[in-house]
């Protein structure tokens, strides 16, 4: 079956611009996660959705970052006034439900480059 998909696969933007990154989770998965992976590092947790609500957004670095999941399926990560330090691969994952029993399946990521 279809896995987690993310669009675009690559995004190049200028400093100060606004970007939106999209995640399509596996159908039927209620839990959705965003991670950020900088070059040479492991992924870092950003935000966790259970259904439509953000259950934990403690990993968002500052108020320029915002994510939504209005219908409990597709999620969009929004970054305002992008900075060069925002350059990274943004990974989305989904799981059947939240909790330790459920494997997180990762998408291929969106590589964001801020020039």
């Amino acid at each position, binding site marked *: 079956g279809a896995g987690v998909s993310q669009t675009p*696969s690559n995004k190049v933007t200028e400093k100060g611009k606004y970007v939106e990154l999209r995640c399509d989770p596996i159908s039927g998965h209620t839990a959705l996660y965003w991670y950020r992976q900088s070059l040479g590092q492991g992924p870092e*947790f950003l935000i966790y959705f259970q259904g439509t609500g953000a259950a934990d957004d403690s990993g968002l670095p500052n108020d320029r970052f915002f994510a939504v999941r209005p219908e409990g399926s597709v999620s969009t990560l929004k970054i305002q006034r992008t900075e060069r330090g925002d350059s990274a691969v943004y990974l989305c994952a989904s799981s059947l439900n939240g909790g330790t029993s459920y494997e997180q399946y990762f998408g291929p990521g969106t590589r964001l480059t801020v020039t």
Partner: protein
Amino acid sequence: TQLLEQSPQFLSIQEGENLTVYCNSSSVFSSLQWYRQEPGEGPVLLVTVVTGGEVKKLKRLTFQFGDARKDSSLHITAAQPGDTGLYLCAGLPQESSYKLIFGSGTRLLVRP
């Protein structure tokens, strides 16, 4: 802040050699996972270990969770070029059921 330190960061070995990757922390985790990530793709789960001292085998890969659930190791026997990739450990803190803490990864190159 809970951290997972992985070592080594890079490993280049000849086909047929054995290797061990380590994942260490001062914190206790309720479970620990090992992932493999290929370029341009997301991490793919290899195994989850839950019980202190647990050992799991996946073909030529052996995973062990430390007795105190603070560390883990991945041992590969007779490495093949197809094992080349980035190996990541990730732990679930005791206070969270979903917030994975990842190590910085071990980049493995197996030369034919």
